[in-house]
């Protein structure tokens, strides 16, 4: 019985492979994800369950943040309207499964780019929209001013299922400190437990610490230690195997960063069509046929800049003006001493 089943399945498989092969060659030029997105009329975007500055919903259900703006940029490029995005809040645990099982098409959820994630589990990272690093928050009255002040028996609250858990172990092991990890599934519980005094320190990405600090009962009683114990390049992720869609998301992000570099903003984008600089003209679609290579029209980048703004505007609106991290640090353009450097759009 099982012998026949095997033969039957291989027959079914052969037919299926043949069928997909023939349809695939015709659709190869046009991405499946792009086609589906255009058919649905909205971009399916996975975000966090609430991290101010990155992806956070207000009382009316409007999402804002730099991670949210990546999805809005893709929507502006592909559908012509930055508001045509369906946001799905995901926990750290759910995020990759949601992407690989086709529930969402972009995961823009302060996710660290690592080799194993990129290569092993069917994902592709398209770039970095925030350079971060892991830090520690402690109570001011503890007198701790550096990570070297931690002692054996320290308890550390954090989120489960993140690179944070691994970095924490590497860090405490390298210092020879015995510690107690207390890991929660949701960030709100981490904050509540640390606030109540369950843990001596709260560790996560420094941007996260800055954003979550405002949720504490008295934010001024807590400080973030100066040391950064890891590299956390955060960026949007797509499914492996759809290179056209991957390119669209990558170059939507790159367009925002390059627009800042050339001084193109949401306010002056239209007037830049007559700029003397060919690079600027290409960026706003007045020269060249860059959109066609992505299967889009030529105004795709202009729409991103006009509707979402350049990277600097997005950062200022979401992170600087909200008081989370007024200092851009490494997230400044390479021309201004930061490390934001994107390949040229040409």
């Amino acid at each position: 019985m099982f012998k026949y089943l095997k033969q039957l399945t291989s027959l079914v498989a052969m037919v299926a492979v043949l069928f997909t092969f023939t349809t695939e060659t015709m659709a190869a030029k046009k991405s499946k994800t792009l086609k589906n997105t255009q058919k649905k009329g909205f971009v399916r975007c996975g975000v966090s369950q609430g991290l101010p500055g990155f992806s956070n919903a207000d009382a009316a259900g409007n999402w804002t943040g730099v991670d949210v703006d990546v999805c809005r940029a893709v929507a502006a490029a592909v559908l012509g309207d930055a508001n045509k995005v369906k946001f799905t809040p995901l926990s750290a645990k759910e995020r990759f499964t949601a992407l690989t099982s086709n529930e969402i098409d972009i995961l823009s959820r302060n996710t660290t780019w690592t080799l194993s994630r990129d290569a092993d589990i069917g994902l592709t990272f398209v770039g970095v929209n925030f350079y971060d690093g892991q830090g520690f928050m402690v109570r001011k009255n503890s007198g701790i001013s550096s990570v070297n002040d931690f002692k054996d028996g320290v308890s550390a609250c954090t989120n489960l299922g993140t690179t944070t858990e691994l970095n924490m172990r590497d860090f405490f092991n390298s210092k020879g400190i015995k510690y107690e990890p207390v890991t929660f599934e949701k960030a709100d519980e981490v904050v509540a437990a640390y606030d109540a005094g369950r843990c001596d320190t709260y560790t996560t990405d420094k941007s996260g610490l800055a954003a979550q600090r405002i949720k504490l009962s008295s934010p001024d009683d807590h400080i973030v230690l100066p040391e950064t114990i890891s590299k956390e390049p955060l960026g949007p992720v797509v499914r492996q195997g759809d290179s056209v869609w991957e390119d669209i998301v990558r170059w939507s992000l790159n367009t925002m960063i390059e627009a800042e570099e050339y001084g193109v903003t949401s306010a002056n984008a239209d007037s830049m069509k007559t700029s003397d600089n060919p690079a600027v003209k290409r960026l706003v679609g007045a020269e060249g046929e860059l959109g066609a290579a992505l299967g889009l029209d030529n105004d795709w980048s202009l729409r991103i800049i006009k509707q979402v703004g350049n990277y600097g505007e997005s950062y200022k609106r979401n992170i600087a003006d909200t008081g989370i991290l007024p200092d851009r640090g490494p997230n400044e353009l390479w021309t201004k001493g930061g490390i934001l450097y994107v390949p040229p759009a040409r």
Partner: protein
Amino acid sequence: MNIKKILPQLLTLLAVILIFGFFSYNAQVNMENRGITFGYGFLSQESSFDVQFSLIEYDGSHSYFRAYLVGLLNTILVSVIGIIFATIIGVVVGIARLSNNYLINKTAAVYVEFFRNIPLLLQIFFWYFAALRALPLPQDTEPMFGVFFLTIKGFFVPAFVWNNLDIFIYSIIAAVISIIFVRIYAKKKQENEGIQTPVLSISIGLLLILPILSFLFGGVDASVEVPVIKQLSQSGFTYDGGIKLPPELISLALALSLYTATFIAECVRAGVQGVSKGQKEAAASIGLTPNQVLKLVVMPQALRIIIPPTTNQYLNLTKNSSLAAAIAYPDLVLVFAGTALMQTGRAIEIVSITMLTYLSLSISISIFMNWYNKKIAIKEK
């Protein structure tokens, strides 16, 4: 063999195989398309994450399989604690609901209605964050009996440091075996000669004397290690030494017991009320004492009604313990289906192992309870 009888069964089997075949084939194709590999080899890899609380020796240099065992043992621990306390509270409340005393009766009724009608997850959050709010910081705590310290960072209790622990354990095993023999002997004696032996006091005596002998002559020795306060920073303290029970374990066990106890209380009440009044009257009329009426007539019949639904409650409690992930108690779901799944990305493998594990746990409990149920069932002669 009748073809009419076999054909429907064959068709059902075929349908089941086809459905499973379709799903596994579908998963295989999709995983291949997305470049995801499948395999259980990761279980032997180094896990590289730590766990807060573990019954066996574990740190990040151990394998993922070891992490799985840590989670499994923690799940079993909280389930066993929960089942014991839920049963005790449930029986007490169930009997209280049958009381003729208005106050006791109504208090029990209010307790049952209140706790079984609030979602369990909310109760877990309530007990956890209520505990965190109510418990003192390590430096402010008042010791109980000088050696127990209940703080926000956990319940610190003294630990025993043993010499020749194995001999002590053998003495207890020896005591248990002799008690079994005494019981068999007592039963025979009653059947043959009609004389009752005080089995209970003999059992207690054996259980005390043999371990004491092991202390006196077996070289067994235990000393107590009391937790001591330790300063971590200007404002941060903890306790060192002894055994630490994390607040997550305590509040989870509390929430699970209080919630499940309400259902067990109802089972107990139904069971006792299910024994007809005539049985008690008949038992009294043949001269049994009230204690004997309860032990020999009412309880054996009530248990037959109580056991099957209570088994369900034990299974529920075990499965509900997976809500632990919400409050950072490192159970199977948090450690294995949480952190390990995230670090390896092997969703299908890990979820399948986790499902099989819960299935085996539940089946073990129900096999045990079915055995017990059969043991107390009516034996027709």
